[in-house]
Structure formats: C-alpha cells, structure tokens
C-alpha cells in the first residue's frame, strides 16, 4: 500500500518524463539544495577572485592611478613576463626549489618512516621529536634558521671555524650561489616529517603475510622492500609527492622571511615574486598575469592528485 501511495505522489508532482539529464537533475534536486550554501560561499571567496585576477591580468595599473582607472593592455603583461630575464630566473629557482625540496623531503621522510617502523627502545620519543619541525610555526622557524645561517653570529659558521674547516664563516644566505640550496635545506627540514607520517601510515598497511611469504621465497631485506613494501606504498607515495610538490610550488614563508627573494633574485620563487610585484611595486596587472600562469600549472598538478586518489579508490573497490 505504502509503495502505491508513493508512486501516486511522484506522478502528482509531474516528474519529467524521459530526458536522461533533466530527469537525473530532478531526481537529485534535494542534493543540489544541500550543496548550494557551500557553492555560494565558494563563488564569493574563490570564483570571483579568480575571475578578477584573470581580468586584471589584461590591464596595466600604473603607479599613481587608482585601481579602477586601470588601462587595458591586452596580452602585454603576458608578453612582458615571458620576455623578461627575471621570469626565467624565477622559474628556474621555482623548479629547483620544488623538485629538490619535494624529492629530498620524500626520501628523508621515507627513510625515517622505515627506521621508525621497527620496534626499538625510545621509538615513541624519537618519533615525537622528528615531528617538531612540522608543527612549529614556519615564521618562527625561518627566523631561527636565519640566525643559524648568519654570516657573523650563525652557529654553523662558528662551528666550521672552530673545527678549522674555514677561516671565515661562509655566507649561506647572502651569496647568490648558496642561498637557494640553503633555503631548500630549511624547507626539507620543515616538511620531511609530513612525508614521514604519511609513509609510516602506509607502512602499517603492508600485509605481514606477504613479507613472510617473500622471506620464505628467499628474498633478503632489500628485496622484500623492493618487491613487497615499495609496490604496496606506490599510491601513498604518489599522493605524498603530489601534496609536497603543490605545497612547495606555493611556498612563501621561508624564502620571504629569510631572504625576501634576494640577493639579486637568487632566491625568488614564483609566489614571492608575485607578492613583491603586487604588494611591493603595485604592478597588479603583471602580478595577476603571473598568478594566472601559476593557477594553470597548479590546476594540472591538482588534476594528477585527484587522479591518483581516485585510482586508489578503484583499486580498493576491486579488492
């Protein structure tokens, strides 16, 4: 009886007949209602700024003019960026920064995860200590490292001199050739715990029985890692690397606070450069054009991230 009543009601509401898509939308009308508030907020705080940035990227904002008096310049901002030597320096820095930080953080984090996966005395304390760099404020860490690296008062320099390795403390962050590697070291120090936590979680899902089977099959510790553990961690590795890559591409705090992009752009990466163009020099149009390019790059990274995630789900579903 109940079923019959329900049917009559649906008919009474004139459910659209046929038309696959329309009908689907109609069937899920309540679901659209549920996500509407979230979509509205997203439109205001995300979609509109994106639109405005894209719009601004086609305008010049000469100093002295108000933003609303901007001058349309077509693709000039883009051609200016792509032909400027600074763009190529910054891009090169960004690539080195992103690739080196991501790769080395991942390797170091993975190594720590493997070491901490075994049971030994003091493991819990060691794990807690290793997570500290990740949980303390990046701003505070940047200032601390600035002092550690300082060419007059830095502890590294002092130790090197005391050991007799150099006569004068090295100029870690005041020299064009050493500034980027020095900042990358800080960045790795800061984010390897993230990779470590991700990989530790992944390691716990490696089936013990597979490792024992490999042991019986004659695999040594390295072969068990290579043939069982590592393939099992492929998905979590992909996700970790992508998350690190996106975070590194978007880095701001460490380079901005420690060097502000200097000396002579040697530690400028995209985000710090955009920030300086926009808020330092009020060149909103060029900064917006940079942002649009960055947006495109990050969206493609995001695409791979989502694909890696959904790949996981499919696999889990099949098992």
């Amino acid at each position, binding site marked *: 009886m109940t079923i019959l009543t329900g049917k009559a009601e649906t008919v009474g509401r004139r459910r659209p007949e046929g038309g696959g898509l329309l009908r689907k939308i109609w069937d899920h009308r309540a679901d659209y209602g549920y996500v509407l508030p979230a979509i509205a907020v997203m439109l205001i705080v995300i979609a509109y700024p994106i639109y405005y940035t894209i719009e601004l990227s086609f305008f010049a904002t000469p100093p002295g003019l108000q933003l609303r008096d901007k001058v349309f310049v077509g693709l000039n901002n883009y051609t200016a960026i792509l032909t400027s030597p600074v763009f190529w320096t910054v891009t090169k820095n960004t690539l080195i920064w992103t690739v080196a930080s991501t790769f080395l953080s991942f390797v170091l984090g993975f190594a720590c995860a493997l070491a901490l996966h075994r049971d030994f005395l003091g493991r819990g304390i060691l794990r807690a200590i290793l997570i500290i760099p990740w949980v303390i404020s990046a701003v505070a860490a940047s200032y601390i490292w600035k002092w550690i690296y300082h060419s007059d008062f830095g502890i590294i320099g002092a130790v090197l001199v005391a050991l007799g390795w150099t006569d004068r403390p090295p100029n870690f962050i005041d020299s064009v050739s050493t500034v980027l590697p020095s900042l990358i070291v800080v960045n790795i120090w800061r984010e390897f715990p993230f990779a470590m936590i991700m990989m530790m979680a992944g390691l716990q899902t490696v089936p013990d029985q597979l490792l*024992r089977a490999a042991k*019986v*099959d004659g695999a040594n510790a390295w072969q068990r890692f290579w043939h069982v553990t590592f393939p099992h961690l492929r998905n979590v590795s992909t996700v970790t690397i992508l998350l690190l890559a996106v975070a590194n591409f978007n880095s701001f705090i460490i380079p901005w606070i420690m060097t502000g992009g200097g000396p002579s752009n040697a530690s400028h990466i995209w985000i710090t450069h955009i920030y300086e163009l926009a808020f330092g020099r009020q060149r909103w149009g060029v900064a917006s054009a940079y942002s649009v390019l960055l947006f495109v790059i990050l969206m493609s990274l995001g695409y791979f991230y989502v694909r890696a995630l959904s790949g996981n789900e499919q696999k889990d579903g099949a098992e």
Partner: protein
Amino acid sequence: MAHVVLNDLVKTYGAFKAVNNVSLTINDGEFVALVGPSGCGKTTTLNLVAGLTSVSSGEIVIGDRVVNDLDPKDRDIAMVFQNYALYPQKSVYKNLAFPLQMRKLPSDEIDKKVREAARVLDMTQLLERKPRELSGGQQQRVALGRALVRDPAVFLMDEPLSNLDAKLRVQMRSEIKRFHQDLKATIIYVTHDQLEAVTMADRMAVMSGGYLQQYDTPAQVFAHPVNMFVASFIGSPAMSLVPVEASTEEGAPVLIGAEGWRLQLSPHNAQKVAKAKTKKVVLGARHSTIKLHKSAVPGSIPARAYTVEPTGDITFVQAFLSGAIVNVSVPPTVAVAPDEQIWLEFDQDRMHLFDGETEMALQAS
C-alpha cells in the same frame, strides 16, 4: 623430498608457552595435518618449522640437517598461506617466478619451471593476469604453484582452504590431496577443520593448549582417541560424552547414570574400569555406535528424545542422558518425536571409557 623431525620443540612468549615440548616425526612423502582449535599452537609450530619464528628450545631436523638457526630461505621449504599471500602488483607468471629469481636461476630455466607448474595446476591461460583478477580458488592454485616451482623438500600449508567458500573448499581439498599423491611430497598442513585433517592426511597431530595430544592415522585417532579432548574434537557430530559412576553390583561391574539407570559392562570394558583410579568415569560413544529402540530391550537405557534433526540420509536424534546430550543416528524411516520415550543401546565393542578426573582414555591392559 625429506623427512622432518621435531624434538621437544618449545616456543614461549614471555611466560606464555605457545608450544609445549612437541615431538613429531614426519616421514619422507608423508602428509601430516596439525589440527586443533584456535590458539592450540599449530600455526606457531608451522612457523617454527618455516623459520619465521625462532625456537625457544628443542630441535628441528629437515632432511639430515638441524635447521634451528637457518633462515627460511635456506631450509628448503615452501609455504602456502591462508590469505594466499600473492604479490598483488605482480602477474601470475611473476608470482611463480619470484622464488626462482630470488635463487638467481637462469631465466630460461625459470621460464621452463614456471610453465611446467602452470601446466600441472592447469592455469597456463592465467599467467598474464594479476592476482586480483582471479577467483579465490585460482589464487589458491597460484599460491600452490609458487610453492611447487621451488621443488622444496617440505611443503608447509597454513590453513590454505579456510578463505574459500564451502563448495570450493571441498574441490580444492581433493586437488591438494591429488597434488600430494602425484608429487609424493612431504606436506605439513595446518587446519582447524578436523574434517580436512581426517580426509587428507596420512597422519594427524591433534594439538590443544600447545601440547601434542595424539599423533596417529586418522582412522586410529577416530577409533582410539587417547583422551576426551581428542574424542570430542575429531568426528562430526562430536562423540557424546556421558559422565557416569563405576560400581559393582552382585559381583558384576556396572556404570550408574545420574538418573539411576544401570549399564552392565562387557568383560573387556569391565577390565578397563577396574584399572581406573577413580569411580568417576565418562562414557563416550559416537552416534553410529548407539542403537535407538522404541521399547525396552535387554541392555538398553531409557532416555528422552530432545530434538530431532533430519539431514536427508540420516536423522540425528539428541537425547538427554545423565546431564549430557547424546547424539544418535537413525535411518530417516524411523520416526521419533521430541520428548518421546526411547531406549539407547551402546555397542560395547566400540564404546569409549575415560577417566573422569584425568580425562584420559581407560586402557584394558
């Protein structure tokens, strides 16, 4: 192939003894089942033989070598796991080839052996598939294949069928038995399913609480269980165990039930009871050795039917006797109603008597 000897094997975890002085000899080419309930130490024993767990004391001999301190890979064993333990990222071919690659065999030899194993197990057409594309039965066959390519001295199998559904389990049971017959392989097979042990093994080692209870052929274990645990664990439905009291009336030994009934003992059984150190005796009987009568006959005991379970071929009647439930099987043509008065007659030649205190079987001599 090789024989395996376990001498006084002990495994302790802190104060807990998982395996207690287990001694076993497994002959070359023999199929031995380690059987017992969960936590009886059977899997630990297998892991000790495999070298996946270190021995606390005792000795393991495979072939003519003491292998206590050898790595699993040097023990010349192959293992089949409960969850198959196939490498999920490798194809069937690569799963089969893996143990050979680890032994650094030349690739043409690996190829030959893998294809031979695939042929024997009838899965040549599956070689390029990934494990997750296979059914449970096929996965188990790949796991067997991976053990087979190694040509090991001993096969160790840890509940290999318990993840399969009932129908497939019966099928794989006969496949593994056939595998053993064709290869004349030495197999140690762990299971909690007594039916698997009884149907497949040449000899079975019944374990409980880390102790080896009995080690004999399934027929012997079935016919002559050494204690009440083995008696109740092996056989389905389980052997009925009825607590009674031994006594002598007018010079004749009898068993007295809680309801007051008397059972005259045959000379052989009387001899067993006479040797007992206690008056508390437990009478054991399998369902097929008890006759059900609808009226009193000499030597029968009155009881009341409790439930009746027709299974098709035979009907099981449960009756209350001396506070225990007694299982009797009757042909389906015999109609018994619950609560009906019945009489039970025990076959004295196939009746078991246990010491009510030590739970050990009573012996005539």
